[in-house]
């Protein structure tokens, strides 16, 4: 078993956090993992993204030009990453910030989620990332939702643990919509 995913959006959208959560969940399922974030000036003003690889065997390159999956949280990220998804791969797009019409690849599985709107509905605009994570995990089944929930406290700093319930809620909502979508 091997898969990878690139998650991308504005700095501040919590991209790195959902990357971390996925990585912990995969570790929990005894997979080998690598997690590669963007860093440095790239983060300022521009987009932030991270690449996660999950495998049963030793992982070679921790970066890829042809990801199996991509989560796109804003417009610039769609421009950058839509063309890179492997044929047959998976693309999740946050249509709250991205024009759905810009999603043009027909050779891949796509999931359009208005993540910010959903988040706002759930009462916290900042958890759009969790909505997306839920959608991704549900659709790809790369790890179980159970593992995600179990390892969530590891990835989220302790002082924010009071937000765990709302985060779980968002993940579940994302997953639910993915099942429907």
């Amino acid at each position, binding site marked *: 078993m091997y898969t990878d995913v690139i998650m991308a959006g504005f700095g501040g959208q919590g991209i790195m956090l959902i990357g*971390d959560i996925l*990585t*912990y969940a995969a*570790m929990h399922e005894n997979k*080998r*993992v*690598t*997690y*590669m*974030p963007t*860093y*440095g*000036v*790239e983060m300022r003003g521009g987009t932030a993204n991270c690449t996660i690889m999950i495998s049963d*065997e*030793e*992982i*070679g*390159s*921790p*970066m*890829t*030009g*042809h990801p199996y999956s991509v989560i796109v949280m804003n417009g610039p990220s769609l421009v950058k990453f839509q063309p890179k998804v492997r044929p047959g791969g998976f693309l999740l797009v946050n249509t709250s910030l991205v024009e759905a019409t810009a999603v043009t690849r027909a050779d891949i599985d796509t999931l359009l989620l208005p993540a910010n709107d959903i988040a706002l509905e759930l009462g916290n605009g900042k958890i759009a990332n969790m909505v997306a994570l839920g959608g991704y995990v549900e659709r790809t089944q790369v790890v179980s939702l159970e593992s995600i929930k179990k390892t969530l406290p590891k990835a989220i700093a302790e002082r924010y643990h009071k937000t765990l319930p709302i985060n779980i809620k968002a993940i579940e909502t994302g997953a639910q919509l993915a099942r429907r979508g």
Partner: protein
Amino acid sequence: MKESQLVKGNVALAEAAIQAGCRYYFGYPITPQNDIPEYLSEHLPKQSGVFIQAESEIASINMVMGAAATGARAMTSSSGPGISLMQEAMSYMAGSEIPCLVVNVMRCGPGLGGISPTQGDYFQATRGGGHGDYYNIVLAPASVQEMFDLTMKAFDLADKYRNPAMILADAILGQMKEPAILEPREPVRTSAKPWAITGAADRKPQYLKTLYLSDGEQEAHNLELMRKYDVIRDKEVLCEAKNLEGAELLVVAFGTASRIVKTAMNMAREEGIRIGLIRPITLFPFPSKAILEASEQIPKVLVVEMNTGQMLIDVQVSAHKSAGIFFYGRPGGGVPTPEEVLVEIKRSLHATAGIQASKNSVG
């Protein structure tokens, strides 16, 4: 044994320094290694250690020199431009035989360059870098675990040989998170340092210096250093050899490039192509013998680097005369993909033996 933790390469390295007994860090911020000073600024004070953000890289390395001269384990970390600024003092430390650790999480060059992963500082690291005849001990990790393990090793080697040691990493190794066990593999060696400058109580005053003006003094000193480097070459080579048996092609790659090669090797295996890998872990001393022996058996050698061909020359000089040597490199933050490496593997296999070193750089 400690549990395996998900940790950033830079953090694993910083934690290794603490576990190796390093209590003195002096450094100046630069991407992509800032996690190192940030971690140490938080954790060293808890260990009664000293963290100083110096006013520059030059001040940093000279503070390292001062602290290390007293016999303490001391280190700094930086990247391209900052490492260039440290060359004078590193030359002094090699000359006065003061051990220390310098970490270079490489960024692109020349100049300010980008911060994408790259391996363009191989020459500078392995050829001394500063002026004069000397070498650094250079270790090239290829995983977060090795960021930890080789940092501990680097302190040991530095002390053992009274020589600066360098960790040569890149942004992937620094920024990537992987599970790693942050615990020493072997107990930390702490050696007596009778040469240290600690104040002349109970002994005659002594000094550490590099100025040799009387006839023949400097030459004698240089030759002594050379003898030391020969011992290091003899005793301290580390490399990973993989699938050499029956391979049609030998790939030589270090650090991040070697990981990409591994992915390409798997892809090749699926196509029935048998590839061997030598991954130099020590870049100085270079695993010349391993490469010579492997290339006696394997007729073709492909060098893969994230630069325009720097380790290449060491492979050329090391490999058996009969071996055909090929090169694939991408400089300036261009990370070769496993697919590209596979193409080069095939190209090398099909090329006639005549080509000695073809620099194929895909833009």
